[in-house]
C-alpha cells in the first residue's frame, strides 16, 4: 500500500445544536492480513491500518483499533452530538508509515 490513499466521508454540513449526527467514513486500503501466501508459497507481509481517530474541534470523540481480520476498504459508521460549529478531523494510521487524513466542517445552527 502507498503511504496514503483515498478517503470518503459522508456527514451533514449543517446540524441543529444538540442534534445527533451520523458519520460514515470509508478508506481505500488492501488490509493485507499477513496470513495470505503467494502462488509460490511465500508469506505476504502484513500491511493494515492499525487505528482510526476522529477529533471534533480538537478533542477526540471516537477511536477504533483495526486488526488483521478487518476486510479491505474498511467502512466505519458512528454518531456524535452537534455541540458547536467546528472541524472534524478523521485520521487513519497503519503499517509501513501509512497515514491518511480527511477533514469536514460542521456548522451548528
Amino acid at each position, binding site marked *: 500500500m502507498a503511504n496514503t*490513499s*483515498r478517503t*470518503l*466521508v*459522508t456527514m451533514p454540513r449543517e446540524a441543529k445544536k444538540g442534534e445527533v449526527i451520523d458519520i*460514515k467514513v*470509508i478508506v*481505500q486500503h*488492501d*488490509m493485507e492480513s499477513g496470513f495470505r501466501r503467494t502462488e509460490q508459497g511465500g508469506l505476504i507481509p502484513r500491511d493494515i491500518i492499525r487505528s482510526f481517530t476522529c477529533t471534533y474541534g480538537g478533542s477526540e470523540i471516537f477511536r477504533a483499533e483495526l486488526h488483521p481480520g478487518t*476486510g*479491505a*476498504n474498511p*467502512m466505519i459508521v458512528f454518531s456524535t452530538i452537534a455541540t458547536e460549529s467546528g472541524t472534524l478531523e478523521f485520521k487513519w494510521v497503519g503499517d509501513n508509515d501509512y497515514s491518511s487524513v480527511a477533514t469536514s466542517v460542521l456548522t451548528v445552527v
Partner: protein
Amino acid sequence: MTTPQLQQVCLQWFKKLKQYLIVKILLSLLLAYIAILTSSVVQAQSKAKQSSYDLMSAENKALQDNLDMNPAAFWLLDGQALWTQPSGPKSLSCASCHGDAERSMKGVAASFPKIRSRRLTTLEEQIEICRTERQGLVRAGHESKVSLALSTYVASQSKGLPIHIDDSPAMRAQIDEGAKLFNKRIGQLNLSCAQCHDERAGLKLGGSVIPQAHPSGYPIYRLEWQSVGSLERRLRNCMIGVRSEPFPYDSDELKQLEAFLMWRAEGMILESPAVRP
C-alpha cells in the same frame, strides 16, 4: 346361470373395465401433459430479465447506490485520475485522444465486447490495446489495479444506459459459440452454466438465490473479493466452482461467453460499478 355363462359375463365385464381404465389412464396422462405445458409457458413468461441487484440485502443495495459508500468509487476516482495523466514515451493520456470521457465514453461499455480488427475484443483488452499501441506503455495485466481503475471509470460512463451489442453476422457467430459453451457440461461436477442460471435461476444453492447471471454491473465490487473485478474473473470463479479448469484470461472461450451473456442481457440497464456479495 351356469358356471361357464357366469365366467363369460365376468370376462366381458372385466374387458370393459380394462378398456375403461386404459382410456382413463391415457386421459389423465394427456391432462398432466397439458398442465406441464401451460405451467412451463407461465414459468417462461414470469422469467423476466432480473438483475441480481434485486436479490441483494437493503444494506448491500445502499452500498451500490451511494457513491460516497460504494468501495468501487476508489477505482473510479483512480481511473478518472489516470484518464488525464500523460504517461509513456509519447507522454499521452487517454484524454489526449478521447477527450472528455463523460462524452466520448458514454454508452461504450454497454456495447462491448465487439469485433475490432476482425477479432472479438473486450473492454479490458481494448484498454490494453490503447495503452500498448497508442501510449507505448507495457501491458497493465488483467485484474491489475490500473486495468480495473480504467475499466471502472469507462464503464461508469454508461451507467443507466441499456445494454446493446452488435449483431452483425461475424458477431453472431461469436455469440453462437458462447451459447454452446454456456450449455456445455464441464468439470468434475459435470454442470453447464445453463443448468444453474437458466433452468434453476430463482431457486436456491445453499442459502443463496441462484441469479440469472446477467452481466449488468461489471466491473463489480465483490465483497467476497474485497476488490473490484472483471466479468472474466467472475466467470473463472464459476468454472472453479464446478471443478473444471478455468479458461485463461482473454481466451476466445471467455470472450465468447462474455459476448453471449451481453447479448442475452440485451436491453438491461448497466449499473456499473455494481456491488455484489
